[in-house]
């Protein structure tokens, strides 16, 4: 098996072209967007960056979690998760754009404004230091990810190492220095990866807690919630599970993966989406209930901007329901709630749907799409408040700029995914 999938091969041309085109669409859209409405362009960019950066890192956490729990998931499936992590270094690079657009996104980069409105927070939120901290964090995460990927991929490089025409031979040679033979390498990788897995998971939680605080919570600089960072990170993890399921379903018959994503593994993936989405709902609810009950304006402001006045303390009743539910963003928030919990819960409750590719795939896609909207909902209402929308500010998650930039990120993500397969042929089988 390893012999066939470790052979270098050319990149699958079709997908490369499609994702290349998508990336191009994204770049052009973003460029045009910048010239027309930079505020909107950066807002959309931040939303998509958050979605994909945390997802890529989440994929490596999933891989780590499987190693830590001795899950019976062998080679090729780990490789898919590893390849999803290939976007991590790029996400660090793409973060620079957020920095460039800071004055369009974060009020607190203006020291005068900060001194006046959020006095005391300047220590944490100020122009270069916040971004420098986050760059350092992301660089650290990228470093940890690289070490983990190296440990995980190394044993699959045996054939590439012996083949002089391997692409990026220099890198392959570097990554296989001191080769001990495949069997020994595999055993060693298993041991090393398990150690590193804990580091990956821990770094992810801490790293993305800070990213959530600095890049989302600070958009509404008065709002705090101790749950929020963990809630965001968990969402990133769950979105990675959904995308991994989707990719595995798409590729389940391709050569190196054939026979790997069996019915029982689909069942496992289905169980994960099912259980983790319940946990997501639990985190959502626990945060909501405490804020709802406390009813402190400082805290409820965040909820009101997203769920409207229907779901704050004294308006949980039917009179005027439709009026209040038509407030800006409310329906969208409810859609995320349906896609991320209602659908996965009720559809995947039984055993059969978890094993049926089309049903599992649809739910996974729905969950992924739900997260895309959820990230939008986390970012946008802080920048374009419902009052502004009611006063006429145009805002939609499905405008040309939103869709274009989102496609661009999809393209970039999968280009990384495929490029990883190119450099590390053992990593992912091509679609035959």
């Amino acid at each position, binding site marked *: 098996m390893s012999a066939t999938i470790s052979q270098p091969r050319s990149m699958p041309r079709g997908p490369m072209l499609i994702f290349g085109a998508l990336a191009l669409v994204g770049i052009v859209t973003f460029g045009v967007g910048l010239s027309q409405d930079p505020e909107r362009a950066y807002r959309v960019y931040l939303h998509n960056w958050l979605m994909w950066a945390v997802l890529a890192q989440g994929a490596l956490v999933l891989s780590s979690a499987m190693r830590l729990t001795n899950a019976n998931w062998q080679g090729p499936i780990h490789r898919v998760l590893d390849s999803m992590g290939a976007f991590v270094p790029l996400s660090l690079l793409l973060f620079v754009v957020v920095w460039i657009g800071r004055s369009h996104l974060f009020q607190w980069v203006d020291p005068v404004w900060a001194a006046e409105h*959020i006095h005391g927070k300047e220590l944490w939120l100020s122009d270069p230091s916040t971004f420098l901290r986050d760059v350092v964090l992301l660089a650290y995460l990228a470093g940890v990810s690289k070490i983990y990927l190296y440990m995980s991929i190394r044993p699959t490089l045996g054939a590439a190492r012996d083949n002089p025409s391997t692409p990026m031979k220099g890198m392959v040679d570097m990554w296989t220095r001191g080769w001990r033979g495949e069997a020994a390498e595999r055993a060693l990788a298993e041991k090393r990866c398990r150690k590193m897995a804990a580091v990956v998971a*821990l770094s992810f939680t801490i790293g993305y807690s800070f990213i959530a605080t600095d890049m989302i919570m600070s958009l509404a600089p008065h709002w705090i919630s*101790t749950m929020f960072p963990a809630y965001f990170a968990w969402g990133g993890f769950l979105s990675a599970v959904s995308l991994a399921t989707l990719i595995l379903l798409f590729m389940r018959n391709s050569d190196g993966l054939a026979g790997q994503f069996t019915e029982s593994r689909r069942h496992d993936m289905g169980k994960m989406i099912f259980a983790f989405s319940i946990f997501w709902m*639990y985190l959502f609810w626990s945060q909501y209930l*405490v804020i709802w009950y406390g009813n402190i304006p400082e805290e409820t402001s965040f909820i009101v901007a997203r769920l409207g006045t229907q779901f704050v303390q004294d308006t949980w009743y039917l009179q005027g329901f439709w009026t209040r539910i038509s407030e800006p963003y409310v329906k969208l928030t409810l859609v995320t709630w349906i896609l991320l919990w209602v659908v996965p819960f009720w559809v995947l409750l039984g055993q059969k749907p978890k094993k049926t590719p089309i049903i599992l795939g649809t739910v996974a896609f729905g969950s992924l799409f739900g997260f895309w909207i959820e990230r939008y909902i986390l970012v946008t209402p802080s920048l374009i408040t419902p009052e502004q929308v009611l006063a006429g500010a145009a805002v939609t998650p499905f405008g040309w700029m939103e869709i274009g930039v989102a496609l661009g990120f999809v393209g970039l993500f999968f280009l990384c995914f495929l490029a990883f397969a190119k450099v590390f042929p053992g990593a992912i089988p091509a679609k035959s």
Partner: protein
Amino acid sequence: MAAMTEPIPANADQINEDVFRTLQPPTPLYVLAILLMGGITTAGVGALAYQTYFGMGVTGLQHPVMWGVYITTFVFWVGIAHAGTLISAILYLFRAKWRNAINRGAEAMTVFAVITAGQFPLIHIGRLWKFYFMLPYPNQRGLWVNFKSPLMWDVFAVGTYTTISILFLIVGLIPDIAAARDRIPDWRRHLYNVLSFGWRGTGEQWRHHARAVLHLSGLATPLVLSVHSVVSWDFAVSLVPGWHTTIFAPYFVAGAIFSGIAMVITVLVPVRASFGLHAVIRAEHFDNMGKFIVLTSTIVGYAYATEFFMAWYSTNAFEQAAFWHRAFGDYWWATWIMITCNVIVPLPLWIKRVRLNVTWMWITSIFINIGMWFERYVIITTGLSHEYSPAAWGYYTPSWVEMTILAASFSFFMMFFLIFLRMFPIVAVQEVKETYYENEGAR
């Protein structure tokens, strides 16, 4: 490695013999332990009678700290109860086979811990005979209970948890009681005869049994999350600085599992040593429990850090003062006991060799129990003693009555556990055998 040299069961009958050794007639040491526990419990009952007669003035509870050791201990024991359900339900769903040597002990602990916990709200209300105020019935004026109060949620959560954990224990016990019925010749066989409900292990019975266990696990898993979440909301939905924080629910659940697993280790290590259960409860089980301790300790540490960070970041003077007071105020010692025991002491458990060292695990687990009790003490007392108005600040010192009842809660729990130990198989024989047939028992 220690795990390698330990004996594995020779055959399925051997497993029965090993486990049923705990059902042998009691040794003098056992009788002594029961007497000791009974004595301390009696002292606790005496203290309770004293408190009931003279009123709540005999406790240290006074304005502004009206919740003290009793509520702390209530939360502590509810937390202890969580390990049983984690080990029996969640690990069952995740098909983690290692759970089966310890799940029965953990389930029994769950039941006794919940029963212990359930008494503390009653002790805390002072007028024990008014306990029925908590039931949903209308009073003389036709007024119903207030379902908006988190304390009411608690009644439902803890009530459900007690019921389900008892059912879970009994359902798991039935096949093992049947095995005991077929093996124990003394008076207890009549008891087993009744409690085995005619179980014979037919294909039909196992089919329904497996389905019931699966569903109970599926129900118990969200239940275990909800119970400690509800307990956390007793605090979090209030507006007390240091209490009102959104992370409380998952943080309490992680802490509960953390302390629960520690208590499983604290209790099972002596049981294993005194009954020679080394072949059934092996070092690998401690290794796995150690991993859970590492995980939950990290989550708890993360929650501490997040709380302190957010208090500072909030720039809210009350939040900042509450957390400053927590770390460096009157109760600094309790806070640092909590941080040391819960975050620092478990750190060596990242190393596998340490996790395989049963003695080390045992000592660590005791520190964790102490740390987790103090965690609840810190949250409750520091929160209440320094609320918004400095004029209403105070300091709380528990009285001897509270300390006696606290000690009695431990002996009460241990006493029931010891009795259970002699009466019922402490290891889930059927499940250990199932694993045995899957692994060692090649045809």
